[in-house]
């Protein structure tokens, strides 16, 4: 399952960092952060609840880039 989230991130490199962090989160099959449209598209592993996975995605993103925001 794929879901799109609105994000707020200030620099292109920070967006890349967020993407890396989101990809490494358990339950995430793939993630794309689009700086231009300020969106994060997350594909979840089968049977995982997006809401709970996104909590850890947000936590991991905050770790690498304190200034980012994901609107869940």
């Amino acid at each position: 399952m794929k879901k799109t989230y609105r994000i707020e991130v200030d620099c292109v490199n920070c967006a890349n960092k967020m993407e890396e962090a989101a990809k490494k989160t358990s339950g995430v099959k793939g993630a794309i952060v689009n700086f231009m449209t300020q969106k994060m598209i997350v594909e979840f592993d089968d049977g995982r609840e997006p809401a709970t996975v996104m909590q850890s995605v947000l936590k991991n993103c905050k770790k690498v880039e304190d200034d980012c925001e994901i609107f869940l």
Partner: protein
Amino acid sequence: MNKKQKKMLFRIVLAAALMVVFALLPIGDVLRFVLFLIPYLVIGYDILLKAWKGIRNKQVFDENFLMSVATIGAMFIAVTQSGDYVEAIAVMLFYQIGELFQNYAIGKSRKNISELMDIRPDYANVELDGKLEQVDPEEVCVGTTIIVQPGEKIPIDGIVTEGTSSLNTSALTGESLPRDVKIGDEIISGCINMTGVLKIQTTKEFGESTVSKILDLVENASSRKSKSEDFISKFAKVYTPAVCYSALALAVIPSLFSMLILQVPANASQWLYRALSFLVASCPCALVVSIPLSFFAGIGGASKEGILVKGSNYLEALSKTGCVVFDKTGTLTQGVFEVSAIHHNVLSEETLIEYAALAESASSHPISKSLKRAYGREIDRSRVTDIQEISGNGIVAEVDGKEVAVGNNKLMKRLNISHIDCHSVGTIIHIAVDSKYVGHIVISDIIKATSEKAISALKSIGVKKTVMLTGDSEKVAQQVASSIGIDAVCSELLPGDKVSKVEELLTEKPPKSRLAFVGDGINDAPVLSRADIGIAMGAMGSDAAIEAADVVLMDDDPMKIAKAIKISRKCLGIVYQNIVFAISIKVMALILVALGVANMWIAIFADVGVMVLAVLNAIRALFVHTM
């Protein structure tokens, strides 16, 4: 400026003012330290906080860490020896000014691009019990009649059932001329209705509509990273720890060396100062910020021109294009066939075309469409039975109980019917009724007005080879090729042959150059994905092409191919300039600082200055309109 940026600007001004005032005050040691701590914290508290969080999250080596260590170190030297607090504050100050500038510039260009690509319709108007109701486009079923008022975006693909208007297609095509539509016209979502009220019967769901396909493409574009970006992120991972350890070595080794080996008292604070300046100068921001920004600006600039690139790796590949392979129909020619001659011998002209149109009634091939157009009357499908389509040859069908064969000379040969070759240039459709040859119809396609210019433009920018592939006859192919100046032609290809032909060309080309295939997307999907770069033209309408291609040209002007290559080269040029410029200035500054020639002021200018210049240079990639 947004709220965050305004706040930062305020902090910069406040810290600078406090710093200047305190520097002018004649005050004693302890009070001086406390006073100067105020502007330092005003300007740098977030950096210190981020560095601390970074350490706690085991993401130690980043620019916040570099800046924090350098400025805390400088404060330490000021307290113990020099009393010069200004330096530490100034480093933070300039660093923040650079960040603010970069932030502002990026935000501005991002907004520029995203506004242009803002084609997502928010609602669709549906008539319910005589009243207009706004609904989510995703909830509209196929076949629903929607109403689009002037000034609104067309939310879903469909056919006009009522009204006339002109459409602004600039968001999709980059074309500023409005397009007129009337009843019966197919229209695509994403255009803006300008003058009249339109009633549209939807032919697709929102998710399958052009606008969704394009948004998908744009939103997924950043997923494919170029080699340069990979290089920079790998580089940064090695570089930052490396400079930190070098700085540590610079602080410790010379002092130890002079104390233990030379047995003289070491000037430890001088080496510490150099090490801190070294840290300031080393910040890799210029690279990590400007390289992704250049690609982002390049892709953004291109999309503004109606050229959608699916990822920065394709932009990179496009800049190395050495060979461009074209599909003929719909790419170099308009793909609108006209019946230009009817050569009959036994039947009348009308009967001949009637037979042809009836036999081809089930086909949607452009040639069939032109036959049906030339026939001009309603087709009674009940007269046609037993239709067999022979791919690459033609059609055999029963019309009014007679066996009618309509197709090229291959079909005639296959059916063992002797036929007369035509002297005119064009696609020749032979017709046989009950295995007897009855004549042929000549259909010709019109070459696009800009095809010739497009080929010469490609050659002038250094594309070595241009090839045209077509399923059409040798004669037509040669005539088109020679009139537009293409290098090589492969004609009479079946759809599958195109893939093997492209594979052949891929092995022939020099290893570093890339092969681009340009097609209109109809039947081209396998070739588009096989080529190094698949370029689909006239995306409006063919979703298979949008999916298979790496680059989508929103209109069908072949001139855009040369433009796309030029844009990619400009972007890649900027990327290389920034890599070379930033790294060489960094290396120079690091050497000067280590030798003690440059102080911390020069180090911070080297850092922020390079970043500002690199960002400005990167934004240049956005301006491609005049290319």
